[in-house]
Each structure stands twice: as C-alpha cells, then as structure tokens.
C-alpha cells in the first residue's frame, strides 16, 4: 500500500471524527442525526460534477466519431455519477425518515434526484442494448447530451420554482447558514471525496482500457493469425453430411 492511500484513509477517519465532534445542529428533530449532512451534501455536489463531466466527455465522443478511449471516460464519469447519486439518495432517505418521519416525501429535490437516477439507468440500459462498440459509444453519447437538458431543469430549475415547496433547507445553505465546524467539515469532505472520486474515475478508465486490450487479444487468438488474410478456403462436401 503506498503512502497516498494511507494519507487518504487517515483523512477519511479524521473528517469522520471531526464531524462527530461538531456540536449538534439546531432546528432539527434529531439534532445528532443532522450530521448526515456532512456526507449527503458533498455527495450531491460530486454527482453533479460527474454528470457534467459525463456530458463533456460525451461531446468529445461525438467529435471523435466514437473513439473507444474517449468513450471509456464518458462511461466512467456516468458510472461515478450514478454511484454518488445512489449514495446521496440513500443518505437522503435515511435522513428523511428521521427528520420528516417518512422514507419518501415527494420533496422536489428528492424527486429530482430520483429522475436523474432514472436517466442514468436509461443511459446504461441503452449501452447494454447495443453490441457494436462504436455505435454504442456514439448513441449513448447522444443520449447523454440530450439528457443534459432535463438534468439541468431537474437539478437547478424545478426545486427553485416559486410554486414548488421544498422541505430541503436550500436557503439556509445558499444564504450562508452553514457556519463553523459544519461548514468546514462539509468543505473538507467535499474536497476529500472529490479526490477519491477522481481516483476511482481514473481506475475505472484504466480497467476499461485493460478490458479492451484483452478483448482485442482474445479476438486475435480466436483468429489464430490464420484468418481471411491467408486466403485459404477449405472445400466442404455437402453430400457427406447426409
């Protein structure tokens, strides 16, 4: 294990302890449980970062006409967006039960994240349905870019509409209501988990490259180096079959 991983592990332990040492938050039904915010909020931000990264890489996929190496980055970014969206969802549902006494409240932000998750599931369903590598890269990239419009609407517009009432304390956070330890722990976790997410992203891209290399090698081995290039066609007698 290298020193970098040890430092990251210690940092995770450190911020976790820091979070539990912070004084209980005021104005919550279960003040101690409000600490879930230290993870829930940074994960939501990281999800959005990877959604934009996925869309950006998808634009590059279309520009490169479906180059697999570019597609690996788009796929990895969307996978991480889905992973962090799922964790955001789970932490949100747990807190929802504790704070609002319901697992699901159809809160606009909860609903928005659910819709974003459905879009990401659809992206991967589309990828799974297309076997040709280039076609899969191009079509899923087009879908990812098309999905950017509803994603922007769901994350940035819908929860802020005047007609929509949210249980989320968005104004508290946007208005600088997070102070002292709460603000520092959220910030520290955001930086730390962004770093970890980026590390996971690069690892995922490397794995995709390795899988691709292995597929190419397997294809060459199946071919046995004696494919059509040799020009040998073996005659087959149909009458022998009977």
């Amino acid at each position: 294990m290298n020193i970098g991983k040890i430092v990251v592990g210690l940092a995770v332990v450190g911020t976790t302890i820091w979070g539990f040492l912070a004084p209980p938050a005021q104005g919550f039904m279960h003040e101690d449980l409000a600490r879930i915010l230290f993870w829930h909020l940074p994960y939501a931000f990281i999800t959005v970062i990877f959604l934009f990264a996925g869309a950006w890489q998808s634009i590059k996929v279309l520009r490169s006409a479906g180059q697999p190496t570019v597609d690996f980055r788009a796929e990895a970014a969307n996978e991480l967006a889905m992973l962090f969206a799922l964790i955001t969802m789970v932490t949100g549902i747990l807190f929802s039960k504790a704070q609002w006494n319901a697992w699901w409240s159809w809160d606009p932000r909860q609903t928005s994240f659910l819709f974003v998750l459905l879009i990401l599931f659809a992206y991967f369903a589309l990828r799974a349905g297309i076997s040709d590598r280039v076609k899969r890269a191009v079509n899923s990239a087009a879908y990812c870019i098309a999905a950017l419009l509803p994603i922007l609407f769901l994350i940035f517009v819908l929860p802020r509409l005047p007609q929509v009432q949210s249980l989320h304390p968005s104004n508290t956070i946007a208005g600088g209501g997070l102070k002292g330890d709460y603000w520092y722990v959220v910030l520290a976790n955001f930086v730390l988990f962004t770093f970890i997410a980026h590390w996971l992203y690069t690892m995922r891209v490397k794995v995709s490259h390795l899988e691709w290399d292995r597929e190419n090698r397997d294809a060459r081995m199946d071919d046995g180096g004696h494919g059509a290039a040799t020009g040998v066609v073996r005659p087959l007698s149909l009458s022998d079959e009977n």
Partner: protein
Amino acid sequence: MESSSWSSEILSVLRKEFVSEMRQKSGLLTAGLFAVVSVVAVAFASFGNKLTAGFASGLIWVTVLFTAVVAIPRVFLLEEEQGTGDMLRLSARPHAVFWGKGLFAFAQLLAGAAVTSLLFFILTSVALYGVGIYVLGLAGGCAALAGAVTLCGALVAQAANRAVLAGAIALPLLLPLIALGVAGMRTALEPDGAQGGVEAVLGLWSYAAAVWAIGPHLFAAVWKR
C-alpha cells in the same frame, strides 16, 4: 445527385411517412386504440368520483405520455425492420429526416391528444375553464414529446430489444415535461385559474424549442453510422 432544398427534403420525408402510414394503418390503429383504452381505463378506475384538477391533469398527461412512447419510436424501428433505412440515408440529409419524421410524430401526437382529451372530458365530467392554456400547453407538450421520442427511436433503432428499450430510455427524459404539463393543465381545470399556467406553457414550449434545436444535431451524429 440533384440538389434539393431543406424544405423539399423535409416535406418529402413527411409525405413518405404519411403515405406509408396510410398504406398500413397499423401504427395509427395501435396508437389510437392504446390512447382510447387508456382513457377508458383511467375513467373507469375513477368509478364516477369527482376528480380534482391536479389528479385529472396528471391522468391526462400520463395517457398522452404512454401513447407517445408506444407510437412514436415506430417511425425508426420500422425502417430497420423493413430494411429501408439505408435507402433513406442515401435519399435525404439527416437533419431533414429528423424534421420530417418528427413533424409526422407531432401531427400524430396532436391528433391522439385531441381524441384523448375529448374522451376524457366526456367520460369523467371534468370541466375545462382555461381552453387557451389547455390547448397551448398540450400542443407544446406534444411538440417536445415528438422531438424527444423521435430522437430516442433513432438511438435504439439498431439495438437489441429495441421496441421496449425505446420507451424505457425516452420516459426518464420526459418526466420533467410531465411536471410542467401537469402544472399548466391544472390551472386550466380550476375555475379560479390558479397562477403559474402561462409560465408552465412557456416552459413547455421552451423545452420543445430546446429539444428541436439540439435533436437534429444529435440525430445527425448517429444516423449515418
């Protein structure tokens, strides 16, 4: 090759869609039947109870959405099944194909939405107060639906299990549209005309404009491959 203008290419694709649909009538009948059965089922499930404006608008939009998802992807799936896709690729530019097929889908959806609405109001006795907001909202929603589902149909045209996949990938993209559609339609079904109807209709048309602006470019990227 004889050069042709955009409008003539789009009109040719649109005409081709109408002619082939009128020849077979299968898609039209299926979509029509689906829309009618959905409305009857929804009205029947309410058991004659008075529906609230919010609930009624949600039911109408869900019916329109599922009719669109069932009917529209056919415009591309058929090309691949009948082997006419390559011919179309050679005959028209991708943007013209998208516009031609999208406009056909829009016309089909508008007709379906009109029939669905009429039946819904007859069967459920829900009163309509804001006709303008209702019609404009439904038309804007149909325009956005047509663009988005046409694009999704093209994306899955060569995929495995494409008929189901088209609906599965189109629905998540259309959920925000439903939120806007329901918000707009609810104001049209309330006697005092609740606020936000005009904003919702503007939102629907803006969504449609965005879909029709980026749709042809994304379609062009996938169509020629």
